[in-house]
């Protein structure tokens, strides 16, 4: 514990209203802390200078998973362990379960939250590709009320978000895919646990009469923000599973990504491996499509 903080305060409100009032009175002053698995690392390393923490971990309004008609709603405080154990999530959203399973390890999963993973806004975060693949929406809340935005438009640039200083992430709505769809998730890291992704790809497709009618591909660690692979999707959409132009999609995905060299990997590795993972996904898609 190396933190020495000249300006430090912590508030633990019991209700969402109290929390939002605090945030609106002094916007920008309070930093929400949920599971702390991102923030505490910075704190312990002495990398936070001024810190006023708003402990939101006790806000029951931000907890819980529910099936609301056509979608599953996750409170922002949903932990990885909670969602891995939830029957509706396991049944309908296997990519979300898989991204939680490969995040950190037991103790991180018991404490880290879905909301924290989104708002921490790391391009390498592991649940965003799944949320993008399922076309999730997120709900933000402040004293001014609630608003809902497509998750896809939430990240505006590296660590920049469509989130006002007085707002909290309230919940995440994920539409339940119709029919028996194709789900694919693969994270590539240094080891199977506790590793930050070098590249990560999630995909969901709906196949009807042997044709790919719907496809979303979410990517992590290969752009400044979690991103959709729009060009690759466009190559595959509307095509018959028997004749998927896989190699064209593999070429196209190169224009969807802008990876960099960093401590975990190189841009070149990320380009090659992302393409390989896409190929694997599309080959599986073709197999699943033929079998169905």
């Amino acid at each position: 514990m190396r933190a020495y903080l000249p300006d430090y305060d912590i508030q633990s409100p019991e209700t969402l209203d109290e929390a939002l009032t605090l945030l609106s009175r002094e916007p920008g002053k309070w930093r929400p802390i949920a599971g702390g698995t991102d923030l505490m690392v910075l704190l312990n390393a002495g990398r936070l200078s001024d810190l006023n923490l708003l402990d939101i971990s006790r806000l029951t309004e931000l907890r819980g998973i529910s099936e609301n008609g056509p979608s599953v709603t996750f409170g922002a405080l949903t932990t990885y362990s909670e969602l891995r154990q939830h029957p509706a999530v396991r049944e309908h959203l296997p990519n979300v379960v898989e991204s939680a399973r490969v995040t950190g390890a037991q103790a991180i999963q018991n404490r880290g939250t879905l909301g924290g993973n989104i708002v921490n806004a790391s391009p390498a975060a592991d649940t965003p590709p799944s949320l993008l693949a399922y076309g999730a929406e997120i709900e933000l809340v402040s004293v001014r009320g609630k608003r809902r935005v497509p998750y896809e438009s939430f990240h505006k640039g590296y660590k920049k978000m469509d989130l006002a200083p007085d707002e909290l992430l309230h919940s995440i709505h994920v539409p339940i895919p119709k029919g028996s769809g194709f789900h694919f998730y693969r994270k590539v890291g240094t080891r199977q646990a506790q590793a930050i992704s070098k590249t990560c790809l999630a995909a969901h497709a709906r196949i009807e009469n042997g044709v790919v009618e719907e496809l979303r591909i979410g990517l992590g660690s290969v752009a400044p923000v979690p991103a959709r692979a729009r060009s690759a999707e466009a190559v595959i959409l509307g095509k018959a599973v028997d004749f998927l132009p896989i190699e064209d999609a593999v070429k196209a995905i190169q224009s969807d990504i802008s990876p960099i060299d960093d401590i975990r990997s190189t841009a070149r590795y990320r380009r090659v491996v992302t393409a390989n993972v896409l190929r694997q996904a599309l080959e599986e898609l073709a197999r699943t499509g033929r079998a169905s």
Partner: protein
Amino acid sequence: MDDHPCKHGDGCTCHSGVSRRGFLGSITTAAAGIAASGTLTAAPAPPPEKAQPDEPVKLQLSVNGRTHKVLVEPRWTLLYVLRDQLGLTGTKPGCERGECGACTVLIDGVARYSCLTLALEAKGKEVTTIEGLMKGEELGATQRAFVEEDGYQCGYCTPGQVMAAEGLLRVNPRPSMEEIRHGMSGNLCRCGAYVHIFKSVEKAAVLSASEKR
């Protein structure tokens, strides 16, 4: 924990000066250490109601079934309070960034890294440390399993491994070897005793089950 006993101020990672133990001796010393760093004097005078690093907060902490009244600074981690305020040194510091698992404890029965947990967050919750797994003078089932299966070499990571195993078995009392490997993946062992650690967890499942019967 270092409080920048050097004169370089915040952001400096210089660890020289006041010795760790000596510094941690008492809260009063800690406050003096901060004042001496000069950083506080440079900061504008804070409003009186604000919790300051040198203004400890009262906390009732329930650890291993006993309630402790402690004064904690809001930024203190549970790991630090357990070891250096309560003297429960079974819980080990390793990386202090949530990667190695040496500091694993149970909070309300769930495995958590105490280095990533603020002591204040544990308010109203039950904390269980390696010391709390004892049944009087006897080792608890999971502890016994590690002894019987030689689930360690130097032993430094062991308290964390045992607590992670305990947390895993409370969610999944009969894990497969695959589930054990995955469940224990947040606990590193520098000695590489993994094979024995995994066997210990298997054994712990058996011993815990027979204990419950």
